[in-house]
């Protein structure tokens, strides 16, 4: 084997009770492209943050270029020849590209000549690598792909021999991705070592020489790319899971067609299959077609998403976070207006020109438990009884003319607290003083008590203590059993598998596939989450 660019040995890192890295060993050959894949929370970002000096390992050693190094901050990482391109760019928007490169490396004196010198070196570097950036344009006016090239150049011009790329394609269009990969291959030929953190298996297969798969803080697989394939990687990434959602569902009703419906994963006939299925199942409570939403930079976060929610089912949305799940919930609940697409709720149709609003959604009995509990679902300085009517505060039962009926609000809150076992049972306590689990139970109680037909639930148990998780799941199942529909977005695959009747997998803003729960095998899910289909 050729010389090692990076060797990390026995790396341990704990954050409180969370053991994020458990004795990780990683060896990266010089001049290679090494991929690191894993689900959310697998520990890959922690490992790279340790290499870049953002965190310190609790145990273990790091060698760069055969020399043992201690990296305590990004300056020392740079000195050791390690550079990093973050997923969210670290750039000053209002400064020019050139000044951004100078920032942090600027000399005390003679700024002007330093800038000229840097420009000369950059021009040479751009010539060699083919990474072109307009140096005199303000960063805010550069397209995303160019900003990323700027970040790469910034690392290279500071002497990085090892370059860490964190989810580099998450913000790019397909064309920009192709261009980036061409440039990265060029860098490899120049002898730069590249570490690629991603969850997209296709990218690993097309670009990397070697791959490390992490799960739950450990390395579970390390292979040459030539000796592996997407299925192996997917299985290693997701691990062996037990799907229990169906079993819980099977107790409440007979055959419903969903179990036998052919659902080819993301194939061209998916649409037809769904349409055909509506004939044998009750009419959908909510139906969305071709949803498309662009973020402020023009990157599509939702790209032609269609889904149907029928009475009496829980649909889980799986996927690595940041693949459009949040945006899907926001669009369906009326918080965001899509650029394209149609939505029908209970027979009422919506188009982007006149999209559903949060207030209209509630009137149509669509409840929403938002992902961002602390900023969206509650008003933290409000007393619990005030937060417990949020969204329903203008209803007749809570007001008389201009007055709030505070007593009615308090009584409703006390009832919710009893039914959902919210502790402490004190409607006058500030919303911020409840634990995460109790806050979530209060939000869930509020939304469920409003008598919805459709519940849109984001991260139902994030930051929730273990005791409350089962309770929350049971409540969602109860809603389903009462004939309602539930859409659950979760970054916890175990949760999706525990409560869903049907699973939609999202990748890069699209529905990568749709599976009934009994077909949710680890390999299939991993493939879809890694974007292996299409």
């Amino acid at each position, binding site marked *: 084997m050729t010389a090692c660019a990076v060797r990390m040995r026995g790396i341990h890192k704990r954050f409180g009770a969370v053991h994020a890295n458990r004795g990780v060993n990683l060896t990266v050959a010089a001049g290679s492209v090494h991929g690191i894949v894993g689900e959310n929370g697998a520990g890959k970002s922690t490992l790279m943050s340790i290499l870049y000096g953002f965190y310190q390992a609790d145990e273990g050693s790091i060698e760069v270029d055969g020399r043992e190094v201690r990296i305590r901050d990004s300056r020392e990482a740079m000195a050791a020849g390690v550079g990093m391109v973050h997923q969210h760019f670290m750039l000053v928007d209002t400064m020019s590209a050139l000044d951004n490169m100078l920032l942090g490396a600027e000399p005390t004196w003679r700024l002007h000549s330093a800038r000229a010198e840097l420009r000369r070196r950059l021009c040479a570097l751009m010539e060699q690598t083919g990474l072109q950036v307009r140096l005199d344009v303000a960063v805010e006016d550069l397209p995303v792909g160019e900003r990323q090239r700027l970040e790469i150049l910034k690392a290279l011009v500071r002497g990085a021999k090892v370059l860490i790329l964190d989810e580099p394609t998450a913000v790019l269009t397909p064309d920009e991705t192709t261009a980036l990969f061409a440039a990265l291959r060029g860098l490899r030929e120049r002898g730069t070592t590249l570490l690629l953190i991603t969850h997209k298996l296709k990218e690993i297969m097309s670009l990397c020489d070697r791959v490390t798969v992490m799960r739950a803080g450990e390395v579970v697989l390390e292979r040459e790319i030539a000796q592996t394939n997407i299925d192996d990687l997917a299985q290693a990434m997701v691990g062996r899971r037990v799907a229990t959602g169906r079993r819980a569902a099977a107790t409440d009703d007979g055959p419903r067609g969903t179990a036998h419906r052919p659902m080819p994963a993301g194939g061209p006939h998916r649409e037809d299959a769904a349409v055909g299925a509506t004939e044998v199942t009750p009419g959908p409570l909510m139906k969305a077609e071709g949803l498309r939403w662009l973020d402020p930079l023009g990157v599509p976060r939702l790209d032609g998403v269609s889904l149907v929610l029928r009475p009496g089912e829980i649909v889980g949305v799986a996927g690595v976070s940041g693949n459009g799940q949040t945006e899907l919930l926001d669009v369906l609940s009326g*918080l965001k207006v899509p650029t394209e697409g149609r939505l029908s709720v209970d027979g009422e149709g919506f188009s982007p020109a006149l999209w559903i609003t*949060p207030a209209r959604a509630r009137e149509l009995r669509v409840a*929403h438990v938002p992902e961002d509990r602390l900023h969206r679902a509650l*008003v933290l*300085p409000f007393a619990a009884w005030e937060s417990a009517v949020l*969204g329903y505060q203008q209803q007749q039962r809570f007001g008389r003319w201009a007055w709030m009926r505070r007593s009615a609000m308090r009584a409703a809150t006390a009832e919710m607290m009893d039914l959902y076992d919210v502790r402490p049972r004190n409607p006058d306590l500030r919303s911020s003083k409840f634990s995460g689990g109790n806050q979530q139970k209060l939000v869930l109680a509020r939304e469920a008590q409003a008598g919805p037909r459709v519940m849109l639930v984001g991260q139902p148990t994030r930051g929730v203590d273990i005791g409350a998780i089962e309770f929350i799941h049971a409540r969602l199942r109860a809603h389903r059993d009462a004939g309602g529909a539930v859409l659950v977005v979760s970054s916890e695959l175990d949760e999706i598998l525990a409560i869903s009747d049907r699973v939609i997998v999202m990748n890069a803003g699209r529905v990568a596939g749709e599976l009934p729960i009994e077909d949710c095998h680890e390999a299939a899910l991993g493939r879809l989450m890694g974007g292996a289909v299409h």
Partner: protein
Amino acid sequence: MSTNASLPRWMDLLLLPLMNLALAMAVASAVVWAIGLEPGPVIGLLFKGAWGSASGISYTLYYTTTFVFTGLAVAVAFHAGLFNIGGEGQAAMGGLGTGLVALAALQWMPGLPATILVPAMVLGAMLFGAAWAAVPGALQAWRGSHVVITTIMFNFLAAALMGYLLVEVLKEPGTMDLQSRAFEPAARMPGVHECLLALGVDWPATPLNLTAVLAVLAIAAAWWLLWKSRSGYDLRASGHAPAAAQYAGIDPRRQVMLAMLVSGAFAGLVGVNEIAGVHQRLLPDFVAGAGFAGIAVSLIGRNHPLGITLASLLFGTLYQGGAELAFEVPGFSRDMVFTLQGLIVLFAGALSTVLVGPLARLHRRWSSGAAQGVWP
């Protein structure tokens, strides 16, 4: 509203402000001592000047009335997440509204009874104040222009407009003074001493007028709006957590407009206190910084109507007591009064959380000691 979670309520709301006030007084005493005066008698005289005589009390309450209005003008906007620095201009416009009603009556409908004219002047003040706040509000709601910037600009615009009107349009013919004609006798908010006289109580004549009753009503109205009304819920939700308000289907633009309109109407009532209550003619600069003092009042009063009442009383005391001091004590100038006010704003407002840490530590030691039955 900022509440210190680490302290029990009574400490946070009562002990802490008192300690901050004491700290301000201590530093003020040191300054007084440094210029060669005895701090004790000076501070004694300040309080005696404000509360020691019927006339002193009346003046104090007259100043307090103005600060209540400007303080509420900041607080209501604050609960909607807006920093209204335009109290000064909104108050000036309130005076213009009051004055225009009175001057129009004088011109076209002389002889209107006070029972019609005075309420019309109050409405005029509130409308003009609200309208002057509505423009920055609308710019914020629909165009995203920050109210901090636009309300400051509108203070200057208000001053310029008042100057122009008093020089070119409303100036009293035949005088050099920058003032309008005097209003009719009926166009006047009755003084408190007159009302007391009607009840058979002898009270010295002071500028204190029935606008003070409006101030009490305004405090109650602000409290009702913020915490008892359905609109107040939406307003506070949108101020505390914009994302949650959007989720709850609350239109943020409506809340911005509501908050600015109410704030402007409160500030406009300063015009009633000064123009209809005291001067009976339109003047430039009658607000004299009270709008800016309202920011400090609201800050010290923790943006709560009750706190604002207390803070206004404090500022009224300082204004009246300070004027008395400047009059009585040689070498104690008006500037010293401003120094005192500045120190109080500094300690009770800007540095109000400095003592939170030490107090919380003390409280923790106390309560844990009490729990173990050991007194520290």
